[in-house]
């Protein structure tokens, strides 16, 4: 019953998103939707750790960047094909997540934030230092890749759009599967009551590490895809604006919800793009809007939608009664 509902939702999403290129002819809009899908994937995988697992960490941007840099380096220096390259990006992120996660998940709370923050800077330093490999400040430029002997660019807009859409759907199924699996149940029970979960034989460290690693894979894949799409990789991959976009997608959409981060990513990406006319002032206005959204929509849009739904479906819940007295 429940999985039927999910299947329908997925079908609806696929249907809507796959007919858009037929209806909308402007490449620019397709480009924005594609970015939104990619950012949504990174955000919703991060949400697996933050929202479902209660582990607030800042390693998602390093995962994204690891995916991007690994695929770019292998492609530029060794001519690796992008299709394998994208997978390599995911693997690189998984390896990094093990390197970070094995020590880092032994600490919690604010210390986990600091630890992952330090990793971010170490990675950035390494990228800037090994100029021969990474291109340093200037980054690396990727050659366009032709399909077979034809003259068709492998990363032409239509192909990229549908690749992003496939990743998007893959990510949704991936996350849903994890949430409904034993791991997901253990994770949520750990978040809600660690004492209880441990008493039921759950090993917190193991479950957290598994989730941390799983949530890194698609971030790396997206990083790789993003780099191939832009055909350039630079240290800008470590920018705060990525961190803020991903994190705010989760918060604005709804922490610990399946669709919230995706919705948040769409809203933020479109917002960011619609502010392009502001040029130099864009980041300033974006920052201000972000703060205003946080202040005036604290619980996330999904929560808002859920609440509206519950008010319509049952007007006499206990919360309603108390609210009236207030």
């Amino acid at each position, binding site marked *: 019953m429940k999985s039927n509902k999910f299947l329908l939702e997925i079908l609806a999403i696929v249907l809507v998103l796959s007919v858009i290129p037929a209806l909308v002819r402007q490449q620019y809009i397709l480009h924005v939707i594609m970015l939104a899908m990619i950012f949504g994937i990174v955000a919703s995988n991060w949400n697996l750790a933050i929202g479902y697992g209660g582990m607030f960490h800042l390693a998602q941007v390093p995962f994204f960047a690891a995916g991007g840099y690994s695929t770019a380096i292998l492609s530029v220096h060794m001519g690796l094909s992008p299709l394998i390259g994208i997978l390599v990006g995911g693997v690189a992120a998984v390896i990094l997540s093990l390197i970070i996660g094995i020590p880092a998940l032994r600490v919690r709370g604010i210390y986990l934030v600091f630890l992952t923050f330090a990793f971010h800077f170490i990675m950035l330093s390494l990228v800037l230092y090994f100029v021969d490999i990474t291109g340093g400040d200037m980054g690396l430029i990727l050659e366009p890749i032709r399909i077979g002997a034809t003259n068709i660019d492998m990363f032409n807009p239509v192909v990229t759009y549908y690749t992003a859409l496939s990743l998007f759907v893959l990510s949704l199924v991936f996350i849903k599967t994890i949430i409904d699996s034993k791991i997901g149940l253990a994770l949520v029970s750990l978040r809600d009551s660690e004492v209880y979960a441990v008493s039921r034989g759950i090993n917190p460290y193991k479950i957290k590490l598994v989730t941390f690693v799983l949530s890194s894979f698609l971030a790396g894949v997206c990083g790789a895809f993003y780099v191939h799409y832009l055909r350039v990789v630079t240290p800008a991959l470590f920018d705060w604006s990525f961190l803020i976009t991903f994190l705010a997608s989760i918060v604005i959409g709804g922490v610990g919800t399946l669709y919230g981060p995706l919705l948040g990513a769409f809203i933020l990406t479109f917002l960011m793009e619609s502010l392009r006319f502001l040029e130099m002032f864009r980041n300033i206005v974006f920052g201000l809007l972000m703060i205003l959204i946080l202040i005036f929509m604290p619980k996330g849009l999904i929560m808002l939608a859920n609440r509206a739904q519950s008010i319509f479906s049952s007007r006499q819940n206990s*919360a309603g009664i*108390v609210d009236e007295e207030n």
Partner: protein
Amino acid sequence: MKLTLVKNILDTRINRGAAMLEVSDIHVYYGLFEAVKGISVNIREKELVAIMGPNGHGKSTLIRAISGLVKIRGGKIEYNGKKIDKLKPPDIVKMGIIQVPEGGHLFPEMTVEENLLLGAYVPGAWKKRKENMQIVLDLFPILKDKMDQICLTLSGGERRAVAVGRGLMSSAKLLMLDEPSLGLSPLLAKELIKGIKKIKDTGISIILVEENIRYIRELADRIYLIEQGKVTLEGKKDQVLGNKHVKKAYLGII
């Protein structure tokens, strides 16, 4: 029947006229849980009112509501005829309504002297901090040698003394003591009771939340019994302690 009704009304009128603090039918919620379900309490000048009842039935919540630490929903709280239930805690402190909470809430890494000085934080009291400090030290001489000691390192009894002393530093007019004897050895508790008696003699009104019937018998003028978030019994000390239900449930007399 009619006569008693008139008498009751007159009684409340008289009480009301003399009451410095008047809590009328207040309700307090923690989320969905109603901790205080329409409590009315009053206290007159120079009076010591004891509040008794089982744990978790709303006594501390009542005190917190008077201090402004929790907001009330419905009902009102008046102090000398002025509504105070919408005021912030600091403004209530400024009026001389001081709480000594359960557990003291001392500043653990400050010295005894600093803790006492902060008791005089509100402007009016700050001017009188030297005199008040003297009063506190006369009341609790054990603190004299401990002024430079960090509160974290004090014994339970000393901490309680600092907490009450900090309350007195603010030139309190109404002191609300929440379970001051909890966890003290009988000897220390005795000292504390002596101190409270002295405080009362200086003319400060006191609301004393207490479990120990012996102390209540020794100190109280009037008693309120609070059960399940409601006042189930109120009256003069002897009236309440003589009540059948109280005898059975709280005094262990069958």
